[in-house]
């Protein structure tokens, strides 16, 4: 019997076994198919940086029409909801009780100072939630400046001109945070499937003793690795399709790059994640340790350090180095660009090459953990 056909035959037999085990153990299917679905829905709908209907307390210590005009813009903003407060004490009570996110206070001498050209309004934001606070500051500023421009136009006074900023945002014109979170979802789901599902696979065989019996057959480590990858690539592919469908039709994120490239890159990353999981499984040989490592070493970093939510340009150099070591970071960059920007070939080729290199490295070391030796 030639060794090539032996290879195929054994690979087929092992893959058949893996598939059967997968299908008959419901918990694996659960994690493989249901959890990603739940994540897609939770993420897409639950995570958002976009502030809307933020209540803002308005304290008018000067009740003149001028003052009221000044803060009228706040009511006009779609992002803010003005809440009238009788005085600062009440406003402070509201903000401490988290009933309002900010206080806009028009001081007693507002009209006088405005006449002098030096009008001031005080804005107090709750810094405990800095992102919301910054956003609110932006919206309040916008609201007040709009009002002041109207005032100027009407009165025809003041210096015309001044510098204005014309802002154009590429790739995400509306600045909808979902657009940039949902592509990241693809990364997280692939990482989840890869690292966590497979991390238990080999460790379980070690703990149950099935590997010892397998070793004393003509089976080769490569066949073991490939057979374990196969069914999970399929599951991962199903999840990938779910993510893409959800992104396109549920969350209406545009897919501007080539779909084929996205699919290819996703499969590539999936294989890398699966191999990472297998590697963890093969080295720890212990289900408890394997799952802990999978969680801590692959999923958390993917969530926090891959550029998913936190922009990597703003982190210290050390962290940037760490994040560059993660395959997830490269895939994240790929995905965001492919969805929102289009197919930018130099970047695509660079990141795919890096992922491929990771794949080869991991395949090699995983194979080594399955060397047919017990010591």
């Amino acid at each position, binding site marked *: 019997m030639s060794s090539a056909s032996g290879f195929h035959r054994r690979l087929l037999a092992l893959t058949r076994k893996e598939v059967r085990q997968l299908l008959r153990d419901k918990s694996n299917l659960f994690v493989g198919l249901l959890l990603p679905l739940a994540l897609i829905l939770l993420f897409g709908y*639950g995570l958002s940086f976009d502030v809307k209907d933020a209540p803002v307390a308005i304290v008018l210590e000067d009740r003149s029409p001028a003052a009221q005009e000044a803060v009228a813009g706040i009511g006009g903003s779609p992002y803010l909801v003005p809440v009238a407060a009788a005085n600062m004490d009440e406003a402070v009570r509201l903000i401490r009780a988290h009933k309002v996110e900010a206080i806009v206070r028009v001081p007693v001498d507002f009209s006088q100072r405005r006449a002098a050209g030096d009008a001031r309004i005080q804005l107090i934001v709750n810094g405990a939630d800095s992102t919301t606070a910054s956003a609110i500051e932006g919206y309040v500023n916008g609201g007040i400046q709009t009002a002041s421009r109207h005032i100027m136009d009407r009165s025809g006074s003041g210096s015309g001109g001044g*510098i204005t900023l014309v802002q154009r945002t590429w790739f995400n014109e509306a600045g909808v945070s979902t657009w940039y979170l949902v592509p990241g979802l693809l990364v997280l789901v692939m990482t989840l499937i890869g690292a966590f599902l497979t991390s238990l696979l080999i460790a379980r065989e070690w703990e149950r003793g099935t590997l010892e019996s397998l070793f004393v057959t003509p089976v080769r480590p490569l066949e073991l690795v490939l057979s374990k990858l196969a069914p999970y690539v399929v599951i991962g592919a199903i999840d990938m399709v779910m993510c893409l469908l959800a992104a396109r039709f549920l969350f209406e994120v545009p897919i501007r790059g080539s779909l084929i490239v996205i699919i290819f890159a996703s499969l590539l990353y999936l294989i890398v994640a699966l191999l990472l999981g297998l590697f963890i499984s093969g080295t720890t040989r212990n289900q408890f340790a394997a799952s*802990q490592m999978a969680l801590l070493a692959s999923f958390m970093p993917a969530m926090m350090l891959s550029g998913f939510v936190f922009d990597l340009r*703003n982190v210290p150099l050390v962290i940037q180095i760490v994040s560059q070591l993660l395959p997830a970071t490269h895939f994240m960059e790929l995905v965001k660009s492919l969805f929102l920007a289009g197919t930018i070939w130099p970047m695509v080729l660079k990141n795919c090459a890096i992922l491929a290199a990771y794949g080869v490295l991991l395949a090699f070391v995983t194979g080594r953990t399955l060397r047919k030796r017990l010591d």
Partner: protein
Amino acid sequence: MPMADLIAWLAQTFALVRKEILALVKDPANRTILFAPALMQALLFGYGATYDLTHVPYAVVDQSQGAASTELLARLDGTGVFRRETTLASNAQIGDLIDSGKVLLAISIPSDFEHRLTVGDTAPIQIILDGRNSSTAGAAAGQIGAIVADYGRSLGGSPPITVERRAWYNPNLESRWTLMPAMIAALSFLQTLLLSALSVAREREQGTFDQLLVTPLNPMQILIGKAIPSILVGLIQSTIILLIIRFWFQIPMNGSYWLLYLGLVTFTAAGVGIGMSISALSLTMQQAMLYTFLLVMPLMLLSGMLTPVRNMPQILQLLTYVNPLRFGIDMVRRIYLEGAVFADVALDFIPMLAVAAITLPLAAWLFRNRLA
């Protein structure tokens, strides 16, 4: 219960607590897993998790080449945040630079900029942002807007209204101050959930759980005996992170430590309750781990750690009422940053206590009634 019986009951339970702590401490694998990740993650995420702008590379096309534009750009560079990456000759070159991610934004100053300013007309400047990370883009735009407005004011054309911003609790609106206190709750939650979820399942697989059930210890005692060490571990982890935040990152603590720890105990107890219920429900360690994982992901995502709860749709906000992490994070932020007193956070305690009150007895019931 008569005094003597009570003492006996306590002594028995204490024997179990002591054993659990010893087993925890003496397991070499445990020692690293329990404390090193908390430490590492607190540092890594403390530095890595930031929405603040520290490094914004930009490209500029300055077709006016006048004093005003140079001054404006100098101000930009002077912040230390904006770094001029390249000066381009024409707008056409902007595309590639943004596409490749080399710059986050490009500023295009038209040739008649100087002239318009002198004459008193509106002088527009165009900025083009990479929206692939919309928060950063928005923040950068906001900051540039402020600098431009400042400059405009200095030239004499002042807008009639100045908005003075004061940020309570976090004067510089550093995102780290928002994120890190949440970590006190979140990171320890993750670990204690895992630990307590595995505790009973592991004993079942090793065969020592039967031995426990055969002793006169009743389920309540077993529950307390196992819950206390897990709670302790959770508290220690929270403390480690607290220390790092307080002394390494120097974020001031404005509330009462007593209240904070009271809250943490309640919060950790709720987490342990969930973990133990999973553990008692699972027949193998593998099941326990899978269920835990299934639960942890949604719990962490919908907790307000990364994104505010108030931005979620109503349905999801309702769901978060059973998530102790949500209230833990809220409570820690309030106490740590806002210096809240008990009255302020009383509402946070209720859901956490409810979760603990339901899951802990459930776990005890399951010990005996979930049989292989």
